[in-house]
């Protein structure tokens, strides 16, 4: 294992004390260290939001994109250089609201990357408006009479559109977080991980205690994550009777790069050798 300190960044952390994001950052560093990935081999891609600050606090390559637009560049980076490990961190608003279309089609495209959603059921950075995962009826700093919209069942959505790796973990359970992230990063294809992350400033409902009291690990049951119908049922489980954490669904699928022989077998696109004269033959079409 490499020393986890090599991922430490000098930046002052701007998250609130007690924020669930600290747990995610800590777990991410631990995961990279255990996987013996060097900082230059990893790109942390992020969107905009509190979650979208993650790349600042870890010493690796970083690509801070636009709000809702982290999925497209993450795919572009991986397609251009398959030797990089691409890990995407974005908020639940970023991933499921502004970026919903990219997520849907990113899953379909199945580029090998890990998408970690900081699932706090609120817009943190913009001070407490409802996110697509905020409970119906919950009062927020914008939905004063309570949220009138049903929350998106994110993992059910992901399974239904064909995601081959769908998991949930909890920022308050480091061991489980590291195990899940490791599995997600090792998975070949689009891996989506919702990380329950209490927002201490703006979500009075989904607190640390709320999650702590309800989560149970799937490992402790005889759950089979390869059965798609069962997985869809499991993905719908949420609330006072329990919130499952662990790998909800897993299926081996051909990745985007697997489908393109010269990318699969040849060098990374960034290492492609090319001379302008190589294109001369294409002019023959116009004679």
């Amino acid at each position, binding site marked *: 294992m490499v020393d986890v300190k090599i991922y430490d*960044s000098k*930046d002052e952390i701007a998250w609130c004390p007690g924020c669930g994001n600290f747990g995610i950052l800590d777990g991410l560093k631990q995961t990279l260290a255990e996987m013996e990935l*060097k*900082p*230059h*081999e990893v*790109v942390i*891609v992020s969107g*905009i939001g509190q979650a979208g*600050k993650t*790349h*600042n606090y870890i*010493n*690796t*390559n*970083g*690509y*801070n*994109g*636009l709000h809702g*637009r982290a*999925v*497209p*560049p*993450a*795919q*572009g*980076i991986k*397609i*251009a*250089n398959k*030797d*990089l490990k691409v890990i995407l961190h974005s908020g639940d608003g970023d991933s499921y609201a502004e970026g919903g*279309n*990219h997520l*849907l*089609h990113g899953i379909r*495209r199945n580029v090998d990357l890990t998408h970690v959603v900081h699932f706090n059921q609120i817009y943190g950075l913009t001070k407490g408006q409802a996110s697509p995962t905020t409970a119906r009826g919950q009062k927020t700093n914008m939905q004063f009479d309570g949220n009138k919209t049903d929350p998106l069942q994110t993992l059910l959505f992901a399974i239904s559109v064909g995601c081959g790796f769908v998991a949930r973990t909890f920022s308050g359970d480091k061991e489980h977080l590291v195990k899940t992230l490791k599995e997600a990063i090792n998975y070949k294809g689009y891996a989506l991980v919702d990380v329950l992350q209490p927002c201490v400033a703006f979500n009075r409902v989904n607190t640390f205690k709320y999650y702590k009291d309800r989560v149970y690990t799937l490992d402790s049951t005889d759950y089979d994550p390869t059965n798609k119908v069962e997985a869809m049922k499991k993905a719908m489980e949420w609330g006072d009777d329990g919130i499952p954490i662990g790998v909800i669904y897993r299926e081996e699928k051909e990745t985007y790069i697997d489908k*393109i022989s*010269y*990318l699969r077998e*040849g060098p990374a*696109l*960034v290492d*492609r050798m*090319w*001379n*302008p*004269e*190589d*294109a*001369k033959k*294409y*002019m023959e*079409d*116009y*004679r």
Partner: protein
Amino acid sequence: MENNILIGGAAGLGIDTLGILIGKILCRKGYFIHSTKDFMSRIRGGHNFTQIRFGVEPVCSHWPLLDCIIALDKETVEFHAERLGEGGVIICDESVEAKDDRIIHLPMARFAKEVGNNRAAGSVAAGALFKIIGESFDIVEEVFMEKFEKETAHSNFEAFKKGYEFVEEVFKINKPKKREQIFINSNDAIALGALAGGIGFFASYPMAPSTSIMTKLSMKQDDAKIIVEQVEDEISAINMVLGASYAGVRSMTSTSGGGYALMVEAMSYQGITETPIVVVDVQRPGPATGFPTRTEQADLDFVLFSGHGEYPKMIIAVKNAEDAFYQTTRAFNLADKYQVQVIILSDQYLADATQTIPPYDFSRVTIERHLMTKEELGNEEYKRYKPVENGISPRIMPGKIENALVRVESHEHNEYGHITESAEVRTSMQDKRMRKMEGLINEIQEPDYFGVESPEILLIGWGSMYGPIKEAVNMLNEDGASVGALIFGDLYPLPTRLLKKYGECAKKLVNVEMNSTGQLARLIRQETGIFLDHSILNYNGRQMDSYTVYSRVKEEVL
């Protein structure tokens, strides 16, 4: 001397194929050709036509008069017969009930049936055309063999011969010498330029009239071992291209105005992250969905001012298929050198105007990546946004050099690419980015000038108006007028040297543009304070031809 033919009919009748076949044969025979398309936004029915202008002298515009019409339906006769010049003829099937003395009724369908290929009616007409213009069979068979499967080629050639034998020669036209040339439109030229320029990644969402750039690249992607990805929307296209470019491959996207509108936030993102990209906007008339299959030059203001905040950019309008190739290769080099966005403006007219041009000289094309190597970095700590004199902080590929991390940031950032709130850092970073403009200004190409040396009237145009204006200037000067023209390719930064030189001596400055507000005239005023005296504008979706420019100058300016 030149000839003009028109092939018209409903969508789905094979006008395109016929136009390409005739064009290719004439090209190989050595004619200069300029062929344009006018079509509706539909798959079947309506009225579409291709116009082919050819001769033994160079041609660079379409032309209003016709010598021969191949009418695949009755509407074509009704719509275009009045444009037929003296001695002109109309070829149509014997079943078409149009009345006109100039019609040659040809048993197109019957002959096609006789050769056992109902789809060969167009080839019957092509055969008749070649006889009418006094051309030989030469080259015809070889082109059919390349274009079709063997059996289809054979039946089409038989059909061609039947048409040829059915009619008499009408025109005595000058025969060209064979010459080395290609027959290509500007969309294909841009795709070919991108391939020559070492494109590695292309993402786009289909939108007329840009789509064929993606189609062309897609056809070559396996052979060239590049990636061409049709994505979910233009926002994804531009952001994916930015990601791929960050990783280190040359990346491009293409679209039309509406798609560009979706890309605008990311264009601004390009500005702050300084990730090189090439974006092609093949313009069509707006606002909104506008005229999907028609032409306009009305996105200049839009691309110029697109993107919030202030950052350097480069805008190049392409002038024709020859220019489009070289400018695309240049765009990649400039994007890499200055780490800027280079926007290529084209339009539907150019996208569909197929012309004969000298073969591209691939030995003239260079690929200059301006990436810093491990050796150049040495033991120094890598800083993505190092504040250097010319504003161009060295780039490296992420993952290639141990301990050298590449961090790009959408927020204002310090030299390491870390987020900052510092007023001082903000100012110095903004200055660093804007300093790149100084370098870009030294790269810009002056507009093309043609006409008399001290013109009384100076026409000013850009991009696709190159051909029509060039021919109009010749015609006007032959009539004894004193006219010159400046045609801009590089638009931003705006080159001003020739503008000042010719602007000073001319009595009247006239902008000739395909839009309704005179966008180039406004840009010139903004950048130089020069007011143009008169505008010749057209915004009906159809490109002004050289004759229109010529007559409008005579009526409105002289």
